[in-house]
């Protein structure tokens, strides 16, 4: 019997659809589409990465070895643009395509990695790395690891250990660095070692007002609320005003605004005692619930320092 | 005549009139009785004499195992008799017995006993009541104690196992696999010097324990001190050359407690980690030795010598699961409880039930395994079951599957009968065991792949190859006499 008999020849056909279905990757992509409004460039990149991994899996089945591609990434963008959510889906995709074994996400910041005194940092960083093994390590505001103004900062030690593991244990974990675009760019400039190990740079754009209103509606629906038509109009005005204010954090600001609207709705319903409430009453956010915001009266965010 | 729904006479003058009245009417049958949490409950398999009403037979058993005698006594009225009377409260026909079957009718009779009837911490007292008189009782043709529910309040008055599985493992520094042992053979006739040779070879070859047999005490061919001295020389030599803690169950069974204590003290002075007793020394002696073992940091091994005389027949005697419960209370650390695949009696389900009773912190009802009562064990330590009798390395996958990890696998013939010698026999068993545990932990289907796993391990272990070849076809397929009464039925899904 010849040695090659059981091996597929170059002409053998492979059913890419079957592998695609088997990985159930479409589920994740669909969920991404349904749960995340906008972010078209991000979704495109994720599709591309998924395609790369899928083809890589096929090639492996035919013994076309190429070494695992590096999958470390950087997610840049303003707060509230969906970086953590996408990272979680990314972990899921990497798991389904067999790139990581467990598919969990460990989210950390500088405080989890860097110690206060000599000999403290290495064990802390290793501890985090061990927890993330088999999954994805998400380091938010990664540039805080590097403080050039302080010569004795222990962050450099942490970066060194991270680099080592990112290089030598690619099969064991994927690192995603996240933060503001400009600061991240500076971080990579001063840490070329880190920059060269990041295979995918994904930029998360800000949401436009239409997208933010859609996001709001999605968030409300998830907790069994809805906006009346008038409320939606008012909220669209709110969003435009809010975007111009300081500390605007995209989806996060939207969530905060909705939380406050729910508070006002509750108050309004409570004060209307004496009439019978319907289920619809309990579900509906009215225009008034937004109009009471200080954005409309004082032109300041409800969360601004002087308080409501 | 006034009586309640269960037939008990309620009028005191009627009830205590001199003469003979049925037990049922004396108050030993109460169909409405709901057992208290503190009651001891006994479940008997009862075969009434022809023509005897099963409820009356159950009441008679309740009566004779608690306060009654054959006739009415007025002195009952000086006591809280109502409390002290055991109450038969339920009688079920045993499945597959009675009319339309080949077996005469048998009944499961449930009898509840108030806690006040028992002395704390005494198996002797408990058993004197429950099995004291009733087994020779004329009203029943045959009687078997099937199971007992021991209330937590009562369990707490017993020491329980001197050491327990967990602490035994910590003392031996052996984790995550069954313990391996072998009984020195031939059972009788070896001199002390030759006896120690077998111990040394077996332990050096890879076993953790060797064992005296039940009838090795202090006979003319080998007095006990000689056996102890030579065995401990062997144990310590083997420990030095392996770096492992090793042991030999030194059987201290003797004619008097004084002699047993003397032998146990000597075993301790030689540095033994374990001593051994036989079930035939009696419940009180067992409890005394358990206390001694706890006080002296020794593991206590029990050989169930003699149990077959009363545990084997299905219609009469005591089920071994009850003996298992009593021995856990009495405080032994090891007890022989069946192998499933070996040469001795033991239906797989029944044996697994015994193991559950010995090893779990809490037993749920499991009729298939013969466990009739929920039984919390009140943090009494766990007893290590010992599987011994006709087992060999080629069955390792089955042994691990059926018996689990907390068990002593005792390969006597399977070690000493090895064609390449005792040491090689021990090595074969150890390699087979380690390979099987490794495969299990790797998530392999080791029960089905067992023979392949053993073959692979034998590639780097000639003794294992020889063991597999020697005993490849040895199985003991006889029908068990003690089988479950309840089998799982598949019910159609709706």
């Amino acid at each position, binding site marked *: 019997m010849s040695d090659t008999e059981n091996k597929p020849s170059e002409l053998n056909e492979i059913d890419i659809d079957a592998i695609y279905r088997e990985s159930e990757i479409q589920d994740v992509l669909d969920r991404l589409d349904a749960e995340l409004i906008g972010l078209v460039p991000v979704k495109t990149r994720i599709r591309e990465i998924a395609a790369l991994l899928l083809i890589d899996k096929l090639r492996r089945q035919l013994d076309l070895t190429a070494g695992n591609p590096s999958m470390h990434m950087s997610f840049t963008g303003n707060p509230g643009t969906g970086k953590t959510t996408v990272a979680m889906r990314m972990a899921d995709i990497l798991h389904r395509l067999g790139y990581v074994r467990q598919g969990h996400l460990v989210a950390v910041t500088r405080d989890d990695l860097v110690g206060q005194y000599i000999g403290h940092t290495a064990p802390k960083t290793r501890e985090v790395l061990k927890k993330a093994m088999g999954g994805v390590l998400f380091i938010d505001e990664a540039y805080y690891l590097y403080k050039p103004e302080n010569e004795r900062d222990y962050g450099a030690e942490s970066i060194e250990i991270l680099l080592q593991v990112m290089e030598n244990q690619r099969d*064991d974990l994927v690192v995603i660095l996240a933060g503001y675009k400009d600061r991240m760019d500076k971080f990579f400039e001063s840490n070329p070692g880190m920059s060269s190990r990041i295979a995918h740079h994904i930029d998360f754009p800000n949401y436009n007002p239409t997208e933010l209103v859609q996001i709001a509606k999605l968030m409300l629906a998830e907790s069994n609320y809805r906006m009346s038509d008038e409320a939606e109009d008012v909220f669209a005005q709110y969003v435009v005003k809010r975007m111009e204010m300081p500390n605007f954090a995209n989806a996060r600001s939207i969530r905060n605004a909705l939380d406050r609207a729910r508070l006002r709705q509750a108050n309004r319903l409570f004060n209307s005692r004496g009439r019978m409430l319907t289920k619809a009453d309990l579900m509906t956010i009215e225009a008034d619930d937004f109009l009471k915001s200080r954005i409309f009266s004082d032109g300041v965010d409800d969360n601004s320092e002087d308080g409501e | 005549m006034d009586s309640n729904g269960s037939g008990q006479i309620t009028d005191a003058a009627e009830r205590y009139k001199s003469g003979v009245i049925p037990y049922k009417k004396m108050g030993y049958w109460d169909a409405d009785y709901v057992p208290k949490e503190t009651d001891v409950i006994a479940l008997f398999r009862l075969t009434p004499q022809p023509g005897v009403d099963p409820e009356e037979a159950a009441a008679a058993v309740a009566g004779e195992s608690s306060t009654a005698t054959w006739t009415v006594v007025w002195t009952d009225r000086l006591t809280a008799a109502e409390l002290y009377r055991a109450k038969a409260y339920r009688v079920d026909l045993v499945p597959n017995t009675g009319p339309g079957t080949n077996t005469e009718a048998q009944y499961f009779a449930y009898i509840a006993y108030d806690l006040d009837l028992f002395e704390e911490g005494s198996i002797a007292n408990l058993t004197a009541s429950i099995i004291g008189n009733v087994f020779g009782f004329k009203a029943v043709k045959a009687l078997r104690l099937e199971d007992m529910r021991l209330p937590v309040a009562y369990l707490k008055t017993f020491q329980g196992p001197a050491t327990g599985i967990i602490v035994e493992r*910590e003392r031996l*520094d052996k984790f*995550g*696999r069954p313990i391996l042992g072998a009984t020195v053979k031939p059972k009788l006739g070896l001199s002390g010097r030759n006896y120690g040779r077998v111990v040394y070879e077996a332990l050096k070859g890879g076993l953790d324990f060797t064992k005296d047999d039940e009838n090795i005490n202090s006979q003319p061919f080998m007095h006990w001190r000689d056996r102890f001295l030579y065995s401990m020389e062997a144990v310590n030599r083997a420990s030095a050359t392996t770096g492992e803690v090793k042991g030999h169950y030194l059987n201290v069974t003797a004619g008097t407690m004084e002699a047993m204590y003397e032998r146990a003290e000597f075993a301790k002075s030689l540095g033994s980690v374990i001593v051994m007793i036989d079930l035939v020394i009696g419940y009180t002696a067992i409890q005394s030795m358990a206390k001694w073992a706890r006080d002296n940091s020794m593991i206590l091994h029990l050989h169930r010598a003699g149990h077959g005389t009363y545990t084997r027949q299905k219609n009469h005697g005591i089920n071994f699961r009850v003996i298992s419960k009593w021995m856990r209370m009495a405080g032994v650390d090891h007890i022989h409880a069946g192998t499933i695949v070996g040469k001795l009696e033991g239906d797989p389900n029944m044996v697994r039930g015994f193991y559950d009773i010995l090893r779990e912190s809490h037993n749920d009802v499991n009729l298939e395994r013969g466990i009739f009562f929920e039984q919390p064990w009140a943090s009494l330590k766990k007893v290590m079951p010992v599987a011994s009798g006709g087992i060999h390395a080629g069955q390792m996958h089955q042994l691990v599957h059926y018996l689990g990890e907390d068990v002593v696998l005792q390969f006597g013939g399977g070690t000493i009968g090895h064609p390449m010698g005792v040491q090689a026999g021990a090595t074969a068993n150890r390699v087979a065991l380690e390979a099987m545990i490794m495969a299990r932990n790797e998530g392999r289907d080791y029960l089905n792949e067992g023979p392949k796993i053993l073959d692979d391990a034998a590639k780097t272990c000639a003794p294992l190859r020889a063991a597999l070849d020697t005993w490849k076809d040895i199985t003991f397929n006889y029908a068990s006499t003690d089988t479950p009464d309840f089998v799982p039925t598949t019910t159609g899904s709706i």
Partner: protein
Amino acid sequence: MITNPTGRLTQGQFSFLPDLTDEQISAQIKWALAHDWAVSIEYTDDPHPRNTYWEMFGLPMFDLKDPAAILMEINEARKTFPNYYIRVMAFNSTRGVESPAMSFIVNRPANEPGLGLSRQEGQGREIRYGFHAYATDKPEGERY
């Protein structure tokens, strides 16, 4: 040289089998993690059978998901103590157990001189035995 059939110290679950590969070690650790057992690494240069407290190479590792994390530490331990005995243990914290559930050796000294047996003769042929690891004749850290 130790004279038992394996020619080496036989403590632990798998000492009678060929040395475990990293892959085999990972499979065992996976079993431990699947049971939610904390895994720890310990090392020693004293193989006495009752040397219970080997040195801890860090604390037991809790809340880990993947064997790679522990293998990384094992390799670190091997690099630091190439000539020591190193064992992997798994701890089961369930009520009624609260004790090690696994223990196996993953590193050994290149040469294992083993232990000697000392005997102190007493009355009536009674003997007190003692074990002595030859390696412990040398000071700590210079034994293998």
